[in-house]
């Protein structure tokens, strides 16, 4: 047995897109809660939520990725920490927390119909492909200072 490098990723669905973020930047996942609109900012921003006494900006993954929401999805908020800032990403539903061997993350740039700019890699989970999101690229325009 050789030690194969593995990457732990959180896999979720946003509309019809299966995507993932590294588990390392994920703080927690919470159920949808009451949200306060933030007027005047980018429309990918859902608003502010209160999680246990702390305010959090929530970004709508559907608008961010340009995928219509699936009405059957119950919704979840993935709390992420990227470039020293904390925000929530609202997704359709969680799929799994998986450890993928590094070689299961394809060298492929993207999947058909997905903007390659937001894709870090393509992986496979239970025979279906997912895109590992480039969070820096996606979130810097929204959360950057």
């Amino acid at each position, binding site marked *: 047995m050789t030690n194969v490098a593995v990457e732990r990723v959180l896999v979720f669905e946003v509309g019809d897109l299966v995507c993932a973020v590294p588990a390392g930047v994920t703080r927690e996942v919470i159920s949808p809660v009451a949200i306060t609109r933030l*007027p005047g900012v980018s429309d990918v921003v859902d608003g502010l939520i209160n999680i246990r006494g702390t305010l959090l*900006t929530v970004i709508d993954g559907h608008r961010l990725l340009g995928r219509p929401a699936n009405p059957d999805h119950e919704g979840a908020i993935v709390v992420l920490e990227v470039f020293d800032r904390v925000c929530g990403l609202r997704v359709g539903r969680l799929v799994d927390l998986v450890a993928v061997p590094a070689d299961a993350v394809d060298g492929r740039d993207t999947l058909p119909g997905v903007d390659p700019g937001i894709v870090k890699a393509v992986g496979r989970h239970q025979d279906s492909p997912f895109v590992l999101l480039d969070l820096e690229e996606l979130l810097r325009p929204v959360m950057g200072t």
Partner: protein
Amino acid sequence: MDHGRYAALFLSESREHIGACNQHLGLLERDPGSQEAVHALFRAMHTIKGMAAMMGYAHVTELAHRSENLLDLVRAGTVTADVALIRLLTEAVDELDRGIEEAATGHDQALDFSYVLERLDTLVGPESTGASPQAPGPASAPEPAPRRPRGDRSRPVRVTVRPGVMMPGARAALALNQASGLGEVTDVTPGAQEFQQEGFDGAFSFWIETDRADEVLEEAIRSVGDIDSVTIGDAARSQGPAAGGDAVQRAHNTIRVDLRRLDALMSHVGELVVARNRLVELAAGYAGTELEEVSGRINRLVNEVQAEVIATRMTPVWQVFDRFPRAVRDLARELGKQVSLTIEGGDIEVDRSLLDEIGDPILHLLRNAVDHGIEPGADRLQAGKPEEGRLVIRCSRERDSIVVIVEDDGRGIDRDVVLAKARETGVVDDEVEELTDALLLQVLGRSGFSTATKVTSVSGRGVGIDVVLTKIRALGGSAEIQSQVGRGTTFILRLPLTLVIFRALLARVCDERYVVPMAFVAETVEYNKATRAEVHGRDSLVLRDEVLATTDLRDIVGLDGADRSMRRPCVILEVGNRRSALLVDALIGQQEVVVEQFDPPSGMPRWVSGATILADGTPALILDAAALV
């Protein structure tokens, strides 16, 4: 030694002593013969040296040590405090100021004071070895000398380190070291090796054989700082050897607390207030039950704890303002002007976090005044004013805010010049004939607006009044300006006493709630057919004999305004002397509000000053009144 923790302490204490140095340099400059100033400088320098040595900051220690040597010569009358010397000392203090910051962040090794040191040497003569030993680390505290017959010059000394000091053992060792420099020290009780023990309470005694007077001895011991009492001679003997310091501890009821502790405490209290608000709201549904009773009690207790914690954080403004006279003097000298600064109401207390924030904006106003406001001496004499320009900072309390007035007796702002420039750059319309104080403030507050004809090193750095005003607004405060040509300019700043918790009015538009700080609410009235008017094509509210432009909160927050009722509640906002009417759909009531930190998305609108959590747990935005009037 837990270095990080002590480094922070070292820094805060050294800053205090640097502050004292600056203050006494000012005194010395006005009265070069002042023994009091020289002594105070010596003491402060000595303390900095001792603390730096204890921390192992060799370069800072060296500079403080050499400055101290020079001061010692001045004290002894060997060297005279002339202009050149005071300037050199000023430079040394500046370098030390920079040095302590660097050292505390671990960069002592990189410090290079050779330029100042060389010049100190030319006045003092190069450092002779061991003339004034550097304070050793605590580990090398002196051992008691063997007992021997005591001569006439031998006296007992009893010293107590101030209770609550972080390193009583190190202080004691330093004090002992000071004493050893003046004579032979014996019979240290408890032994110096015990100073480092856990249970050491900072009280110790020893015998010293010396020719020096009691006062000299006491001064040397006290110079290490944080010494509570020094008793020499019979009085020390009658108290017996140092024992538990109970009596001493009872007599003194202040301790030093790490600021971060207070910040943490304040943040917890903030959360407690939010939770309390929620509890009270929930319990309101259970009138007459035990739950309601407990909630009432918790409500009162939280109020008390909140008041106490805020009181603990209150700091007199002089702690920051004390550095201003020195800054003003230096700048005035650089510009060849004579300017004095008086600070009134320095004892007024504000929250520490706010105090740290307002120093720079006020300093900027002072620099502006010295550079642009105060005329050169000759011009002043010609205008029939005293040659020396006068700056005054006046602090006072006004309800829940602090008012800081920055006043100069200079040339005042030439409104014609400002108006011309404002028209030229399109900041005001051409038909504006006269700049009122309010309009003047608006114009000066525009980003980058400056009428300074020449760029000086002082205030022509692209940082203008606009930056000051923005900062004051961001702190939840307001500013006013009054200026008269030939008479001077006055800035009136109003700031909250604390940044964290304040009373606010909750307003609703459609189904959204917004928070308006009470500090800016003059009153609430009804907007209806009878009170509304159209003035210059703008929807307005007539309030008694005043016409106020209205702003609809729905428009601000981008909500549809189709079914606007003709009878709506209206909040009269007042920021300084500017007033306007804010239309809302409903007023919900008043509430204690805690400002919550969060990572906002890019492009937050200017009218949002922050966010909070309401009693029902929902987040809400806090309106920046200054952006709405």
